[in-house]
């Protein structure tokens, strides 16, 4: 009989429930969309910040043999351990990593900085580089190089041209794969494969430093740097402050902003659902009075209406949560260009929230517990 009553309640007052249902479904949709979005936004934004470049640098330890800090004699460190570590970094956390060997070579008799590195990582480490030509796909490719556009202009180079590099009495040739526009020091540099530069400078197994691009906020990056420092204790591992700190502060601000607005909306939505539920509950007053006069205890009576409201909240919440997941998917596409996958936890959370809010709206009926049926039926 209990569930029969609830079912009839729901069926019988369809019209009046319309506003309540709309409130619950839209409220749930908004909440679910925003919750999904909030969870996804942080990840997306963190990835966006990776275009700022590397945020961890591995360099020779402070007690390395004293060198001058002139680039004619580069400060070096043995590469093997570092390269080994770089190759084993988990791609989920680490967007890109590459070693660098800087020398000052000569091309067409002009001194030019040459960086030996893993060319396949160039695009990932510096995603804002504009390229005229092609990227170099493999780090083993000794025959191709990337040239900064200032260098290209000075040396009159275009993609496909041959480039000769000289260091002391050695020389090497490579083909220009692409010309880079970075808007930074890289415009004045030539990038070739690590092996080629090591052989040109006769510095086998040596590098100047290594850079890593880790996804995450400043504390995550700092933590990762510490972890790397334990793996490579003979080197100095530090976060690159320009990137790490600014990113952290900015992410923090944006996140705070979004969270506050989401919270506001949540409160508002809850209030709206509460108001409509309360109005609905008030409509039931007369029925409560009648049932009391039939000998129903207030707990049993309120139980029926709470069940009705609970079913409404659950059903509306479910529908709304599904709609909201779709909404956040669309919003992700619109804002970030890639979809934000809905998180499954949001569904039960939204439904639960809606049920709780709906029930809270109906609870005032409990207050009719001490009111005389005669009063209620009279309409006071």
């Amino acid at each position, binding site marked *: *009989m*209990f569930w*029969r*009553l609830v079912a*009839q*309640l729901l*069926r*019988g*007052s369809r019209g009046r429930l319309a506003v309540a249902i709309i409130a619950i479904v839209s409220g749930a949709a908004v909440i679910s969309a925003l919750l999904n979005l909030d969870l996804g936004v942080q990840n997306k934004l963190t990835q966006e910040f990776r275009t700022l470049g590397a945020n961890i640098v591995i360099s020779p330890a402070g007690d390395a043999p004293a060198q001058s800090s002139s680039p004619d004699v580069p400060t070096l460190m043995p590469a093997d351990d570092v390269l080994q570590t770089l190759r084993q970094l988990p791609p989920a956390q680490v967007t890109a990593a590459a070693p660098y060997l800087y020398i000052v070579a000569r091309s067409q008799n002009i001194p030019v900085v040459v960086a030996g590195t893993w060319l396949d990582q160039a695009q990932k480490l510096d995603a804002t580089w504009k390229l005229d030509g092609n990227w170099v796909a493999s780090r083993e490719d000794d025959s191709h190089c990337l040239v900064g556009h200032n260098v290209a202009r000075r040396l009159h180079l275009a993609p496909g041209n041959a480039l000769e590099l000289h260091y002391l009495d050695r020389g090497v040739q490579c083909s220009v794969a692409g010309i880079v526009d970075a808007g930074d020091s890289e415009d004045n540099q030539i990038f070739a494969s690590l092996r080629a530069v090591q052989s040109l400078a006769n510095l086998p197994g040596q590098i100047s430093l290594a850079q890593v691009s880790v996804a995450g906020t400043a504390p995550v990056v700092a933590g990762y740097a510490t972890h790397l420092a334990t793996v490579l204790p003979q080197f100095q591992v530090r976060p690159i402050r320009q990137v790490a700190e600014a990113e952290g502060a900015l992410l923090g601000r944006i996140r705070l902003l979004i969270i506050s607005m989401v919270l506001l909306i949540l409160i508002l939505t809850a209030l709206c659902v509460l108001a409509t539920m309360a109005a609905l509950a008030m409509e039931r007053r*007369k*029925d409560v*009075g*009648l*049932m*009391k*006069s*039939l*000998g*129903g*205890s*207030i707990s*049993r009576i309120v139980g029926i209406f709470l069940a009705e409201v609970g079913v409404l909240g659950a059903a509306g919440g479910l529908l709304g949560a599904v709609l909201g997941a779709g909404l956040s998917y669309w919003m992700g596409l619109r804002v970030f260009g890639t979809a934000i996958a809905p998180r499954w936890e949001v569904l039960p959370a939204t439904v639960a929230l809606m049920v709780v809010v709906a029930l809270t709206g109906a609870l005032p009926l409990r207050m009719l*517990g*001490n009111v*005389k*049926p*005669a*009063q209620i*039926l009279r309409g006071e």
Partner: protein
Amino acid sequence: MATLVHVENLRKEFGNVRALDGVSFRVNAGEWIAIMGPSGSGKTTLINILGGLDTTTTGQAIVDGTDVVRLDEAGLTRFRAEKIGFIFQQFHLVPYLTALENVMLAQYFHSTTDEKEAQQSLERVGLGDRIEHLPSQLSGGEQQRVAVARALINHPKLILADEPTGNLDEANEEIVLSLLRELHGEGHTILMVTHAATIGRLADRRIEFAHGRLVQAAAAPLKPELA
């Protein structure tokens, strides 16, 4: 005959207004009492207290051995379910329940529901073919008959009716009144509030109210009214 209802010095105030000002009377089991008087005289207040729908603090109102005035909320709830069958002027059927379900509702709050019994109860009042109808699909008279079936379903000791035909037209009034006559004939005790002398005449006794007081408590059948 046993005394079913014993009211002693009952008082009830609404703010400054004395709705009941020291009312005392008795009702025997099986009697049909008409409580009469102008509007505002306290009739409805009395019947509400006897039915456990309202409370007071002064006086005694013993129904089937239970002093309603002394009951707490839980006690009143059981009292309403077990001892009383109430028939309202405005019917007060639940609009989204069928006739059958409206009767079953009373069963539900008493103990357990019994669809067969509820159906029989509706057949008793002549609505056997209307049990699946919603109140909006029934005429006023039919709705009141459902209310009567509902009032009877738990075999109450006392039937209370507050202007049971007040919202009905003549034809339906006749149907409901003959139903009450049948119930009276079967031995039910009925307390009925009415302001119409013609209806009051159907009862065994009339109790007159005015300004919260009994004006006339006739212990014996009245002389027939002059038309």
